[in-house]
């Protein structure tokens, strides 16, 4: 499967997951966004040797993944990219920080090993938390939450439009790439002589599409405002969700600090 079709299929899968019926999907996007950001802030606030405290924070992910019946298949795929980067940064730590921090059955664990492990765990937690958010909340709902947080209308509108047109343009790019590959068998990638014409044609077609989009938006009464709405208003359960998780996360953090 090509990189482009891979991306298209991933987007479809995420959309389908977010549309699934479930209690986590039913929670209002604003508390979900708030709890996710709080979790991320607390995760990265742990010091480089505070592995034990960080491990306790994992209860948030375990509870939500298990009770929310969230598939981890897609998560593992996403994890690859981030873990590679995080490992690259952490792998040098054991060479520079050789202070012995603790003994595990006669094996001395150095500060560098501990900090590398903490860094990797932070990476896993951060990707998992973002995944939890996107797999239970649609992009429209996230945009709605962003508007409620007073993120400028222009930025949210552009975010919505980019998201809506990504699949259209990915499919168009895939068609063009396939057509090119069929005319240049055995060639990997795009030859330098075709750099300008290939991507330039795509850009020109995109600009024409933008004009068509603008015309159709005007015909439908576009007045500069995209009206985002949520399926329902935030209720008592949503506030309870935010309050309980905030208390748990802050309790874990405070407990580790003590």
């Amino acid at each position, binding site marked *: 499967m090509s990189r*482009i079709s891979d991306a298209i299929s991933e987007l479809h899968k995420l959309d389908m997951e977010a549309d699934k019926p479930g209690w986590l999907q039913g929670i209002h996007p604003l508390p979900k966004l708030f709890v996710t950001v709080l979790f991320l802030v607390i995760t990265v606030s742990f010091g480089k040797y505070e592995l034990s405290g960080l491990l306790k924070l994992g209860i948030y992910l375990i509870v939500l993944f298990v009770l929310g019946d969230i598939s981890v298949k897609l998560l593992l795929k996403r994890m690859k*990219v981030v873990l590679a980067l995080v490992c690259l940064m952490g792998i*040098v730590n054991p060479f520079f920080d050789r202070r012995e921090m603790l003994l595990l059955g006669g094996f001395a664990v150095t500060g560098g090993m501990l900090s590398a492990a903490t*860094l990797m765990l932070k990476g896993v937690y951060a990707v998992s938390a973002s995944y939890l958010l996107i797999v239970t909340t649609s992009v429209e709902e996230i945009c709605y939450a962003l508007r409620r947080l007073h993120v400028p209308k*222009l930025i949210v509108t*552009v975010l919505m439009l980019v998201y809506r*047109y990504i699949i259209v343009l990915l499919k168009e790019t895939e068609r063009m790439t396939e057509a090119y590959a069929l005319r240049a068998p055995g060639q990997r990638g795009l030859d*330098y002589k075709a750099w300008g014409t290939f991507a330039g044609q795509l850009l020109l077609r995109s600009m024409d599409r933008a004009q068509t989009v603008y015309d159709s938006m005007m015909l439908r009464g576009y007045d500069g405002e995209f009206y985002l709405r949520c399926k329902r208003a935030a209720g008592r359960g949503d506030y309870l969700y935010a309050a309980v998780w905030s208390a748990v996360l802050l309790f874990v953090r405070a407990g580790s600090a003590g």
Partner: protein
Amino acid sequence: MHMADALVSPAVAGTMYAVSAAAAAYSVKEIKLEDLDRKVPAMGVMGAFVFAAQMINFTIPGTGSSGHLCGGMLLSAVLGPCAGFLTMIAILAIQCLLFADGGLLALGCNVWNMAFYGCFVGGFLIWRMAAGRKMTKGRITAASVIGCIAGLQLGAFSVTIETLLSGITELPFAVFIGMMQPIHLAIGLVEGLITAAVLVFIYEARPEILYGYAQEDGGSSGRMSRKGTVTALFAAALVIGGVVSLFASGYPDGLEWSMEKVAGTTELFARGNVYQLAERLQGITAVLPDYAFKTSDSAAGTSFSGIVGGIVVLTACFFICVLIKKVKRSK
């Protein structure tokens, strides 16, 4: 160059969110003066275009590897720096949410490292070198390559600083920067050439799409004004000098460290009339010795000296530019 959440501390993430938000607020204010209704769909579709185009593998001749085009630079050349910057924010947010490319908490860092430098430094160069004067294929190519290299070098430098300030890696600064800058120099060159190829094609096929082309023989509406550019650069210098310098290391730098190892001290003393005279002169003129108030080691002193240093550099830069302009005119 996307930073993951695990690579930033809350303080660094918060600071970078604040500076990126300031740049976004400036862009929203500036863009509202333009034809917004027409520009918004173009920003959406162009954002999706950059996203899709980054999936294309552009083969680099003779290497067997491939490169991608520079989104920030391209968007600035088509939509202008402010609209390009806002579109890049949307792209980075989607990349982080949907593809785990960069973290949610590190979004402020990524916006600054990629969108700000790509759009404002790249866009500024495009404007000065190509769109600001008569547009030619050579000018577009030069602007694209220089803009991409400059944007990526600054971005890579920021990544290094942000990671080190977050206390994530044990890598020494010199080693880290020595790894980051050369590789991004090569990437910048390739991305610049790919972006140039696309922009030159557009210039030949539909030049009116390029930002600033239509105003070539008219006024300068829609372009970033000189006042705006100077203000933006001044604000950036204040932020970097004033905020980032608070985190400046108290440890000796590479040169001082080497001197300490060799001579046992970080200060070398020379004897002789000339040296003594120079030392006295330096004592009189140095307002902020070792980047702090003469009588204070406080954070305020460090921060203040960062701001003063930024202002001095900007002033010197301004006068050098005026001098160069005058010399050019006299020729």
